[in-house]
């Protein structure tokens, strides 16, 4: 069996099992947070989605660079799939955040650095997807998209420092301002770790499936073009 077949067969199962484990950890293992109550449990989804979204954008930049360098279509397909899945998870971050913020901060949205930087990244990759949607399938569009994917990621340091000039109220949970972890309960840590891994697995599977769909549909387009020409 080739590596790809093994992925195709077992990855869905792994993702499914990991999801059950994650739900179990979130709702049964992790204790309820004392001050915030049950709404704090959304944190596990929120943070895991954020990691996944960032993994997605990093993948876009990396495969875009590889595409420009090698010219192999496969990297372009990976970049596009990762952008779609990354934007999806980034949207989850932007949805779960306000659901938590409304009862805790008393407002849906704050112009806090972290919120703003997530929103900026989301906007950049939405524009990436728009370019791909309207641009068409020519080679030059692939190169434009690749360049945009790279531009988005090299701007991240500037995005991070520039949003710090805005006043902030986002909690620093994983690394507090004193440099220690704010997440002390082992059950909570376990729940976060399991959920994070589950989301990364899910991400890998989605990108894999999406890339394959794209390869097949591009192959089909090519065949149609050949038929028309012949």
């Amino acid at each position, binding site marked *: 069996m080739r590596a790809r077949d093994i992925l195709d067969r077992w990855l869905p199962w792994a993702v499914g099992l990991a999801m059950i484990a994650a739900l179990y950890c979130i709702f049964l293992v992790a204790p309820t947070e004392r001050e915030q109550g049950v709404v704090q449990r959304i944190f596990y989804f929120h943070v895991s989605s954020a990691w996944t979204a960032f993994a997605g954008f990093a993948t876009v930049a990396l495969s875009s660079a590889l595409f*420009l360098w090698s010219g192999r279509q496969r990297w372009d397909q990976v970049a596009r799939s990762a952008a779609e899945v990354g934007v999806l998870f980034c949207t989850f971050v932007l949805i779960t955040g306000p659901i938590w913020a409304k009862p805790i901060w008393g407002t849906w949205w704050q112009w806090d650095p972290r919120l*703003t930087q997530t929103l*900026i990244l989301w*906007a*950049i990759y*939405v*524009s990436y997807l*728009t*370019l791909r949607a*309207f*641009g*068409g399938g020519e080679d*030059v569009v692939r*190169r*434009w998209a*690749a*360049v*945009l994917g*790279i*531009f*988005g990621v*090299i*701007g991240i*340091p*500037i*995005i991070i*420092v*520039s*949003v710090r*000039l*805005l006043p902030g109220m986002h909690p620093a949970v994983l690394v507090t301002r004193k440099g220690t972890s704010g997440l002390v309960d082992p059950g909570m840590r376990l729940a976060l770790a399991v959920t994070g891994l589950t989301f990364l697995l899910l991400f890998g599977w989605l990108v894999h499936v999406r890339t394959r769909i794209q390869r097949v549909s591009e192959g089909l387009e090519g065949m149609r073009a050949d038929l028309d020409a012949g």
Partner: protein
Amino acid sequence: MLAILWKDLRIEWRTKEMLTSFVVLAVLLVLTLSFASQAAMGRVSTSRVAGALWVSFLFAGMLGIQRSFLLERENECITGLLASPVEAAEVFLAKLVGNVMLLGIMQALILPLAALFLGARIGDSLPALALVLGLGNLGFAAVATFFAAVAVRTRSREVMLPLLVLPLLLPLVILAVRATATVLDGGGLAGASPALAYLVAFDAIYCTAGWLLFEFVVRE
């Protein structure tokens, strides 16, 4: 590179097409934004002046920068330009310098108006303001010039340029507005220094990236 820059500036000087249209547009934007903020709250604060100015610069500037490539698009001049023995990177630099100059001229014409209508006191802080605007223009022009070359070749080009560059320019908007507001408030360059340092970094990153990657977007 200088030849391309010279050619663009000479065309602009003869037609004044780009400059007139985008200066008028920027003036209208400043006016619209001042009417809007007047209607909403009476006296306009310095921070809102800075915001209004940059929104006007961005939108008028994008149209102007787009023109610098539409010009090449007519009669397929860009193909000739790229066929000539110049590097794509040099075409980018020439366009970038030309666009930065035009943005500067536009701002020189807009600022007195802003002082008049928005009540901004620009007299005392003019050198500092010029530096802030210059740094902002460089980063803005780098991103916009780069993607204007892309946008003019897509089907929906009028929408495409803002769609591609506005998200990338959001950090620049934060930094430039912050620095402009500080300078207008009399904070001087020292007060605006963190934002200015990041602006320099923004300029450096995107000028370099544009210079290195321009070849990939213009090559057929």
